[in-house]
């Protein structure tokens, strides 16, 4: 039982981080109908940014987080302006291919700047470990939990109560109406990319603290896609709930099934099995809206 609860607790933290990545994805999809395959690479860049600020510059974690967020805002702005803006109104496939190409360029840049080696800043993080009965919560998990819950809360408040947040929700509802009342859709697109980038980078810093940073960290993006599909592609609440579900299930399946399989690796393939299952049986996810199409 202790083993089970331990898996649930660490899975919950992992799930919150997945939820962060998934929110970034969902926000772009809602606002500009673009599927952002490069979301996982924002996570990768985030991990390396965390390493740069924490280890290379030796800054405390909160300052590092702030600086990384500022960098992420700039990155999101540049990416949106240079690559996605020219494709407004192009077919879905062109936009998807653009984000795929973007992901390879980001990966290449990460290798160029940071050498693509394994970096870790495990020792630099403050130790605030906790024990709940027999279950111990490692300090990275605790930090991850605090930061991710704070980020999600700030984001939801922003989305609900600020003017630009309202504009974004309106754009998600109906682009034409939004344009006719004088809201600039391009600003909304830019802000949605900035938010996605910030969310990805924060998740990257947190995951980097847990498992170190390496190029395969970008595969977290693929797991976030499973989260997005399970939650329903246009539901932010769904992304959070599904993130937690996938995080916990992944940890449990890895904990119990890996010993049964000769080569293990269940944690890596599990999200994809979830994905195929969801796609076959419930393509719109738990909370997504079914699309009705007309010719």
């Amino acid at each position, binding site marked *: 039982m202790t083993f089970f609860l331990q898996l649930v607790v660490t899975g919950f933290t992992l799930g919150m981080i997945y939820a962060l990545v998934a929110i970034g994805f969902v926000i772009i999809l809602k606002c500009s109908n673009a*599927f952002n*395959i490069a979301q996982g690479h924002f996570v990768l860049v985030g991990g390396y940014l965390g390493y740069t600020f924490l280890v290379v510059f030796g800054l405390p974690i909160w300052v590092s987080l702030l600086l990384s967020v500022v960098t992420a805002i700039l990155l999101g702005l540049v990416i949106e302006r240079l*690559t996605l803006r*020219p*494709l407004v109104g*192009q077919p*879905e*496939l*062109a936009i*998807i*291919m*653009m984000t*795929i*190409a*973007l*992901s*390879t*360029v980001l*990966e*290449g*840049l*990460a*290798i*160029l700047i940071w*050498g*693509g080696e394994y970096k870790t800043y495990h020792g630099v993080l403050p130790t605030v470990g906790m024990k709940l009965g027999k279950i111990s919560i490692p300090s990275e998990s605790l930090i991850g939990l605090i930061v991710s819950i704070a980020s999600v809360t700030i984001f939801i408040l922003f989305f609900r109560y600020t003017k630009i947040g309202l504009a974004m929700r309106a754009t998600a509802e109906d682009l034409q109406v939004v344009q006719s009342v004088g809201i600039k859709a391009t600003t909304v697109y830019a802000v949605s990319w900035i938010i996605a980038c910030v969310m990805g980078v924060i998740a990257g810093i947190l995951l980097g603290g847990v498992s170190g940073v390496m190029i395969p960290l970008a595969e977290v993006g*693929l797991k976030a*896609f*499973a989260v997005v*599909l399970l939650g329903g*592609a246009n539901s932010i609440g769904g992304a959070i709930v599904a993130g937690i579900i996938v995080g916990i299930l992944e940890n449990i399946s890895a904990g119990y099934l890996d010993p049964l*399989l*000769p*080569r293990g*690796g269940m944690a*890596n*393939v599990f999200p*994809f*099995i979830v*994905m*195929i299952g969801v*796609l*076959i049986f419930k*393509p719109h996810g738990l909370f997504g809206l079914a699309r009705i*199409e*007309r*010719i």
Partner: protein
Amino acid sequence: MAIFRTRRDWGILFAFLGFLAVCPLFFSDRVLTMLTMIGISIVSVHGLNILTGYCGQISMGHVGFMAVGAYVSAILTAKLGWSFWAALPCAAMAAGIAGLIFGLPSLKIKGFYLIMATIAAHFIIVWLILQLYHVTGGPDGLPVPKPKIGSLVLKSKTSYFYLVMVFTVLSTLLAKNIIRTRAGRAFVAIRDNDLAAEVMGISLWSYKLQAFFIGCVYAGVAGVLLVHYYAFASVDQFPFIDSVWYLGMLIVGGMGSIPGAIFGAVALKLLDELVTIVGPILSAAVAAQAAASLALIARGLVIILFLIFEPRGLAHRWGIIKAYFRLWPFSHEE
């Protein structure tokens, strides 16, 4: 209408085939290797083109299906002692059937959701290959015999080049013909508007699965050619990123065009060659990791630039050039 309509078309075809036949006389082994790799890529991209370019079903698991074909052939030839020629159709069928299975979600979903399903297909296939290590060798890989014709073993680069070129030319002709059949026209209708196609009486269920089957058979053949070339099967030969590059070849060449698939494969492979030449120079001049990152950045940038400035690909540009010369001296800017 015939594919080769005029005597000049036939002349160009035979001149090109003749050029391929004498290639080994002029080129070094290094160039032949490159051409062999381009040929294998073209076979694979034709499959992806039928599936994605013509039928509009975007697949990012293409390399996974190549791996299915490759491993079926590897197991049949290495473990059971079948000949290459008997194993090849079985491997192609196996890849096609894998495509049918993972193509099933395409009946309900499209666009991004289908991309996710095919990405999942890739990772599940690779995971299965690693799990079934009794037959596949798992992470250690599996040595594969070189193909034989009679008693002639296709060991040399030259002989393998001829083998691959035969498959490349045949697969190009086959692809060209497939899209001219009833099924091919149905694919295009489904790509342009699947609801309208269904209303017109095209069975989405049947034709989408046919597209998956054909595309994955092509992938399977390409996978077989790849492992027998290396005489070794390993999951490292089928990295996920290659599926991205195959889609990139389609973008660069031009989607939904048979010459486009060829242009794209040739262009991106030539870019690779350029990178292998420039990479070490950059590595020495800037930083050691520059060579590794250059390939990713260069290919990504090329795809980005094509998407922004020439979304219809090289095939479109080729059409403009052809029209220019056809209309000359009365040609004008389009």
